[in-house]
């Protein structure tokens, strides 16, 4: 079955001073896949998200959504085009309630205008991530894991075409990981393409259809999860961390 490319980068590079955060990175993201991006610390994972979603401008290279060149667009434009990202350290709207956080996300994506519908949809999303009971609390009063779930909820609520998750599993253990995997898979069933950037390998191997490995700003390899984790180059890149 031929898969459509929904988002791709072409030779994207970004330098910070003398450091090559990204070096000639060309990747393709296929529609409705769950793509994992992994790599040791400093490999450029978050920078890649930042560049694709417009928070950082690349020094070289272009980014395309289907056929449209989206390089250099401001973050809100890219979000409006359907590419939504979450943040590694969750950024909830602290003084607003949990449900209001989700409501804002819904309000600014296409579709629902009616207050009733927006509210119902917000409840649905909260139920899905397991925050329904906490919906009237202020976001700042949530636990760290709950804040991560809220971050995910905001992303899902926007019903994006592509959802880029920045280390959404970080800090999660056991059952929480299972929960998150389940939620993300359900999102894909609704037609959302998922790009999950992770540092910890184990969760990614069960979640992703395909994994790209970055090391020092370059694409090291890509393939199915089983192939990638057994790849000696990948092991070496991670071992260098220890």
């Amino acid at each position, binding site marked *: 079955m031929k898969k459509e490319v929904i988002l791709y980068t072409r030779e994207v590079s970004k330098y910070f001073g003398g450091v090559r955060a990204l070096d000639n990175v060309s990747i393709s993201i296929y529609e409705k896949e769950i793509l994992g991006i992994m790599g040791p610390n400093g490999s450029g994972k978050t920078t890649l998200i930042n560049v694709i979603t417009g928070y950082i401008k690349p020094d070289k290279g272009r980014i395309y959504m289907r056929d449209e060149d989206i390089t250099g667009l401001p973050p*809100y434009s890219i979000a409006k085009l359907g590419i939504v990202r979450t943040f590694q350290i969750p950024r909830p709207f602290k003084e607003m309630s949990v449900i209001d956080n989700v409501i804002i996300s819904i309000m600014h994506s296409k579709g629902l205008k009616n207050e009733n519908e927006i509210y119902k949809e917000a409840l649905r999303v909260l139920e899905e991530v397991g925050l329904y009971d906490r919906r009237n609390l202020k976001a700042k009063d949530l636990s760290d894991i709950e804040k991560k779930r809220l971050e995910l909820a905001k992303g899902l609520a926007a019903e994006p075409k592509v959802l880029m998750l920045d280390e959404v599993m970080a800090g999660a253990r056991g059952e929480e990981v299972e929960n998150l995997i389940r939620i993300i898979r359900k999102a894909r069933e609704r037609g959302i393409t998922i790009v999950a950037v992770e540092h910890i390998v184990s969760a990614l191997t069960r979640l992703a259809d395909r994994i790209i490995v970055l090391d020092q700003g370059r694409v090291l390899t890509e393939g199915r999860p089983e192939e990638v984790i057994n790849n000696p180059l990948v092991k070496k890149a991670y071992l260098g961390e220890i």
Partner: protein
Amino acid sequence: MRNILKIKNFISIYPLIILVMVGVSPIFYYNDWAIHLMILSLMYAVMGLGWILLALAGNVSLGNAIYFGLGAYFTIFSIMKWNLSSYEAIGIIIPISSLAAIFIGYLTFRFGISGIYFALTTIAFAEILRELFIFFREYTGGSLGTYILFKDSSLIEYFAFDSKLPYLYFIIGFTFLVYIILIIPSRTKKFLMTLRAIGEDELAAAALGINLSRYKLAAFIIGSILTSLMGWLYIHYMRYITPDVGFGLSLSLYIALLGVASNLRLEHVVLVAMILTPLGELLRAVTGALLAGLDILIYGLLIMLIIIIRVLMRRRR
């Protein structure tokens, strides 16, 4: 059970009750001075509302007096130099204040000027205009200011009355209307929630597709229009303006103080204005006559106390 206002209301309705009470009170107790105070308080309240909109989005303006001054002076120009009616004057000041807001807003939001630098820029703009209006004294009367004289007292042409009551009911009605617009429509709720989100976290807001500059600009323009309309009202009521009163820093600071004292909550502005304004005027009348400067001294002291108490109470929590 159908609940139309499902999204929790951002503003409660008690200010409307206060407004009604104020409107009814002259029947029970008619006092010229009290009515004057209420008119002033509500005028400041409206300006406070306008200020809060942009403050919610994270930009604290300390130069909102610029729109007040523009509104007042251009009302004078419209009526006395260009022979327009009071109502046509509104048609002049709204575009002018909007243009000023767009100019300042574009400069600052596009360049990412925020925080204290934004505050300083707004101060600078207000000061520029204050100096310019003093400089062009042939047109503006310079630092001594200028009066407005209505050529005749026909209501169709001019919003000029001998009694205070029409002004009172106008400002009550206007404030009421502004609150209704802020409370009921869904669009306003979305607008206000978005402004708050921007004020909380710009990066997170942008990630959800929120166009930061556009919302900030909208808040700024709406605030400018509200403020300049108060300038219009002021000149019709007091009939006199000077560059210091119109563009002065103390006005800008007072508007900001109202917003801060209301905790950036739109519903508290009316109450806060109705407490602080009479206090300020009373202070000026009583102590200013006693000893020149005593009013400012006490006012400054009060401001420091109010804020420090707020800070200390937060620390205890």
